[in-house]
């Protein structure tokens, strides 16, 4: 026991921890790079050049060009930026709803808890994509509607996770002892609950984000998402469908792969953040 402790204690940020941290940092850097690169690419993404129509990937146009001669690399970068922005907004709003409901349920219990449980079940019982399409349609389309629709359909699962965790904390012996020491609900929520939920909340938010991006792409693909003039990944994919049979594979494959990579990177950040935020994880 002593020997083990001496090995673990001096390197609190052990090798494994440092490696995880490096992965998260690298992923975050690439995702951030895409967002930054998407800014200057916005102009190029809309510049048409009728002499360069339907070109395959080359040194001048890495991702080829589309039917109007627009550079697909610029369109992909601009599209990813738009997707990421929509994803962040939707994930944050969604996670905010989840956290509020979960805390209310755990701290007040009783009727509030049952009402939240009922609401979660209600939303989970409805088919996800149908609800998403109906909401986006009802809200009139456009970027704002997509954010609202994705946010309003994605909170139930995270609420369920946070509520479960919060209930576990609130029924624990250490909360009972804190109550016995004379501390009230607010103190317990701040000192016990916040710390235990923070990890799950951050991880949940980050993991909501790939969902949000993919659903944004799906909605845009179906024509209910962002404005068709804007180069979101969903719109790029929808447009490319008509040219796939003509052999213009680069229009769909390359932007699609980029979306996959970004989603995977965000997923890496999310799954590793949990390990980094738990003080016990340096036992690993």
């Amino acid at each position, binding site marked *: 026991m002593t020997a083990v402790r001496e090995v673990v204690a001096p390197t609190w940020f052990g090798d494994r921890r440092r490696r995880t941290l490096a992965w998260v940092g690298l992923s975050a850097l690439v995702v951030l790079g895409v967002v930054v690169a998407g800014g200057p690419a916005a102009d190029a993404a809309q510049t048409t050049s009728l002499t360069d129509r339907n070109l395959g990937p080359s040194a001048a146009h890495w991702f080829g060009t589309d039917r109007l001669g627009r550079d697909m690399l610029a369109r992909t970068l601009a599209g990813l930026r738009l997707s990421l922005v929509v994803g962040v907004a939707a994930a944050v709003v969604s996670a905010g709803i989840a956290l509020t409901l979960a805390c209310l349920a755990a701290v007040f219990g009783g009727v509030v808890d049952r009402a939240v449980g009922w609401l979660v079940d209600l939303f989970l019982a409805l088919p996800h994509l149908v609800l998403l399409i109906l909401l986006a349609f009802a809200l009139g389309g456009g970027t704002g509607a997509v954010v609202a629709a994705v946010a309003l359909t994605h909170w139930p699962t995270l609420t369920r996770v946070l509520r479960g965790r919060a209930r576990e904390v609130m029924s624990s012996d*250490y909360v009972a002892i804190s*109550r016995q020491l004379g501390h009230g609900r607010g103190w317990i929520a701040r000192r016990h609950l916040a710390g235990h939920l923070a990890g799950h909340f951050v991880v949940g938010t980050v993991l909501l984000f790939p969902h949000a991006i993919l659903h944004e792409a799906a909605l845009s693909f179906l024509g209910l998402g962002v404005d068709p003039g804007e180069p979101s990944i969903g719109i790029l994919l929808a447009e490319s469908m008509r040219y796939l049979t003509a052999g213009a594979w680069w229009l769909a494959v390359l932007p699609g792969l980029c979306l996959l990579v970004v989603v995977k990177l965000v997923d890496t950040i999310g799954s590793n953040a949990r390990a980094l935020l738990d003080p016990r994880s340096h036992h690993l």
Partner: protein
Amino acid sequence: MLQADGVWFRHGRDRPWVLAGVDLAVGAGEVIGLCGPSGGGKSTLGRVLAGHLRPDRGRVTVDDAAPRPRRAAHPVQLVLQQPERAMDPRWTVRQVLAATGADDAAIAALDQRLVVPSRLDRFPHEISGGELQRVNLARALLARPRYLVADEISASLDAVTQARIWTLLLEHCREAAIGVLAISHDRPLLETVAGSVVDWTPSPVGETPA
């Protein structure tokens, strides 16, 4: 005097009674042992006495008054068998002790046999079970209780560590005239540490209040 008067308790309306008309008294500075089989409701009685659970019938009084649990620390503190469950795993030992309202000076002035100073900034999972149980005891003592319910506090420890923790507990409680209810299934242990031992008979199934 910590007194239970005809206490009845069950964990829900459709559940059987766990405590059926329990009477018990612990005088100030007195050490009473409560000995009985596992699953008989001893721990539930401990939690009722410490105010974690509210009795369905009967009452618990501390020095002839109903304890006021709000805002101030409860006059009856509970030391549980599993210290790792009684402490927030995200807190260091120092934070656990500070939650009693004790300042840094009071924590530094603690008996070093209870809390080794080098362990103060460790997390509960980083120190041994015996050390952790002593921290658990130190926390209960820092809350300045008038009575202490020690629920199987040494059941998961070896004989030497058991002896150390009981010596510390008895020493500190004698000093501050704290009454102790020692709950255990280990009769020889209770006969060693307690002034008198009460035999616990689990309430019969199907018992209902008159």
